[in-house]
């Protein structure tokens, strides 16, 4: 399942890297502690977080995440957005909280298998 399909299904708003929405999502990780995400997430994951600082782009790049979804309508900081455009990392925004969004994406991925 790609990011575009998840975005459509869950009404996510796209903030960067529209040309990367065909990135395939193979799993997900939810977390706001960056060293936890660094250690425990995987390449191909969609990363669900409420962190909006530009360090999230460096982490998503290093870990080769499919993209980042910000929860609770959090918007990326200005420099985060600039960096995400440079590095071509999709950042999306959801109105849902982390628990609900994670559950929905988990189910979508499970159904897709």
């Amino acid at each position: 399942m790609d990011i575009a399909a998840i975005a459509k299904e869950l009404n996510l708003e796209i903030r960067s890297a529209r040309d990367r929405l065909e990135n395939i999502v193979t799993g997900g990780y939810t977390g706001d502690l960056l060293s936890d995400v660094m250690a425990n997430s995987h390449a191909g994951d969609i990363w669900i977080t409420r962190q909006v600082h530009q360090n999230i782009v460096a982490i998503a790049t290093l870990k080769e995440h499919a993209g980042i979804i910000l929860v609770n309508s959090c918007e990326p900081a200005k420099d985060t957005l600039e960096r995400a455009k440079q590095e071509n990392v999709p950042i999306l925004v959801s109105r849902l909280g982390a628990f609900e969004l994670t559950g929905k994406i988990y189910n979508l991925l499970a159904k897709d298998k």
Partner: protein
Amino acid sequence: MCAAENILEKHSFDIEGGNFSNAGTVSTKIKSILKQKNLPDDVVRRSAIVCYEAEINIVSYAKKGVISLTIRPNSVQIEADDEGPGIPNIELAMQQGYSTANQQIREMGFGAGMGLHNIKTYSDIFDISSEVDKGTFLKMTIHTQPAKD
């Protein structure tokens, strides 16, 4: 044989303390160098984790530092050498959850007290030494081939 003779490649990068807007760029460069070498995914992945944590600690706590990457036929070595406050109690600092990160650092999502622990977990060999008011030195070695063959 002297280990230095085996060096295939060495790269060094300067890191500026306090500069969070550049944080992670050195790790990204090191990762792309390792990827080009066609090293196993797992080696690249673990190197990126340990390098990133060392880089962020320099940015978070030190004045400045240097991260160097040394590639040998059977290993990748990452060293992080900084000038800064040093770590008074290394055993304590290594414990998961221990952190002296200030509010600004925590607001960005750092300061869980997991970095050094992760470095230890993902390296095959990890050495740390530190002198208060001087700086901290980390050496991480990751084997690129199975140890026993």
